[in-house]
């Protein structure tokens, strides 16, 4: 196991370094530089002095390699610089929103698991019946329906239903309160985006559960279990599901990694002040230092999460770590 961890880790470091190079190049190989681009957007004329000041301020008047290593050194110390738009340290801006995004990602993952595993299991047991077709269509639809539209529909539904039942339209609260301060308030705000996105992410996991379970159900030991007269329920729950969960766990882990930064559009729809919304705002406001830092944060979470999933997988299935 120790060797396996080291081997995996050796893959993580160059990937992260490569990602840092890519993000850095993306932001520096643009025509002109970020100062020109930023100011040119505000009108035809701009003061050359202002551009020089801007360059000096964010340090892009220095040689490229100096800037790069300075940036990398900053990342290692968790110092991402200051936002060009709010003037606050980027770490502070991220810290304000991290909690909300993390909670939303966890809730979304939980909901998607709660949808995916039962549906995938039913679909596999009832393979090629109408139940299977309904479940598969439901999950393909989940991939096709944009979660932001589903979000709009959910908000609309809440408005219409509360209007009809209580006479006054109710909207989920907008201001974030941590779950340990006021759980009811917190959940009444975050459950809707979690459902909208959870449905979408359940689709892949449902299909994975179905196909993995179908494969396992054809194994010899399942036949043995049936032959010795075990209840079908026991066979599915104790023998089949347990062994088919491996690929499902991987998919869910990767989805969770994606959700940490991928809730860009959902947060916009529900007007949640999370990392995704910050990312969109940084792009709209041409806040390049913030965009750069956020891309790097998302990629780091993504790569590390994949690393954890790999380790987990290797821990669950010894065949993988000795391969």
């Amino acid at each position, binding site marked *: 196991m120790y060797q396996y961890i080291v081997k995996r880790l050796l893959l993580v470091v160059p990937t992260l370094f490569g990602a840092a190079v890519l993000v850095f190049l993306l932001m520096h190989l643009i025509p002109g530089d970020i100062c020109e681009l930023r100011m040119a957007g505000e009108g035809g004329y701009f003061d050359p002095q202002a551009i020089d000041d801007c360059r000096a301020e964010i340090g892009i008047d220095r040689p490229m390699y100096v800037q790069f290593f300075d940036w990398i050194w900053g990342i290692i110390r968790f110092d991402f610089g200051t936002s060009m738009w709010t003037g606050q340290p980027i770490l502070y801006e991220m810290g304000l929103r991290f909690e909300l995004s993390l909670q939303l990602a966890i809730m979304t993952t939980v909901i998607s698991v709660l949808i995916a595993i039962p549906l995938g299991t039913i679909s596999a047991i009832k393979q090629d019946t109408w139940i299977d077709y309904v479940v598969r269509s439901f999950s393909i639809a989940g991939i096709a329906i944009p979660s932001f539209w589903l979000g709009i529909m959910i908000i609309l539904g809440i408005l219409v239903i509360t209007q009809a039942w209580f006479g006054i339209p109710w909207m989920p609260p907008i201001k974030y309160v941590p779950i340990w301060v006021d759980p009811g308030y917190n959940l009444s705000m975050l459950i809707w985006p979690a459902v909208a996105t959870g449905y979408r992410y359940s689709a892949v996991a449902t299909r994975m559960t179905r196909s993995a379970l179908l494969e396992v159900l054809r194994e010899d030991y399942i036949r043995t279990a049936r032959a010795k007269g075990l209840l079908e329920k026991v066979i599915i729950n104790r023998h089949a599901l347990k062994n088919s969960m491996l690929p499902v766990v991987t998919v869910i882990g990767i989805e969770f990694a994606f959700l940490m930064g991928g809730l860009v559009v959902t947060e916009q729809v529900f007007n949640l002040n999370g990392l995704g919304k910050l990312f969109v705002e940084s792009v709209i406001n041409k806040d390049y230092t913030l*965009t750069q830092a956020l891309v790097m944060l998302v990629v780091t979470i993504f790569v590390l999460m994949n690393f954890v999933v790999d380790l987990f997988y290797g821990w669950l299935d010894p065949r993988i770590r000795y391969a």
Partner: protein
Amino acid sequence: MAVSEVQVEAAVEEFAERAPLPLVVLDLIRRQPLGTAGAFIVIIMILMAASAEFIAPYDPIVNDFANMLLAPGAEFWMGTDEFGRDILSRLIYGARTALFVGFSCAFIGATAGLVLGVASAYFGGTFDLIFQRVMDVFMAFPLIILALAVVSILGPGIQNVIIAITIPFIPNCARVVRSSALAIREIPYIDAARALGFSHARIILRHMVPNVMAPYLIMITAFVGQAILLEASLSYLGLGVQEPTPAWGLMLSGGAEEYAESAPWIAIIPGIAISLSVFGFNLFGDALRDALDPKLRSQ
């Protein structure tokens, strides 16, 4: 040579004996009900996009302040938006935008991935190793994050959106194609081609690329749906296709949310269009994969 003649004869015979079209379609529906449904949606969408000028009842761009926020009715079948523009017409023209972005991204991204993936497998060695690591780096970016990062540099607009969506597709396709191409490289006819003194470019393009068409086509159909969804997301965020171009994602931003309660059709209709089209491409792609991938077919 003899083999190809036999094949040609077989093809001719098959052609001669081919059942009339309605029967073929019926057979297809029976064997691939979901795939046919997908193909049907895709065909409708293409027809809508191709004949937008003829079937759209109104101009999709011109504002008509006398008819703002009208509910669906006899005159405007799907109602009007906050600028008095006919939603049905914008929907029809929007199909054109969606398909243009979808196909451009899918085709360019998959083709670039195809050539790079095959080249990587063909050359092997250090080139392959470095290429693989570079692809790893690209794959570490969630799709929408990389696309947004590119938009942040290039700015919004339809061309930039196409570039932004295409870039993440390239490593995706390259990786899949590379694994197929690795197997092909080991087949003796590639050695034969090399022994005949063909150039690398010729071997890659004429001898290897045609043999990895199956994963390539599967990737293209998968990409079209993804690209339509991504374009809609970017446009919804205001970072994609810009007003007044009719685009489904754009139709969902602004007025759609503002008037969600009083004029819900503005928000409901474009979302159905996006969902249906992506649904169609996904179903079609799944059926195509079943048909083209021999490994899956045998199961």
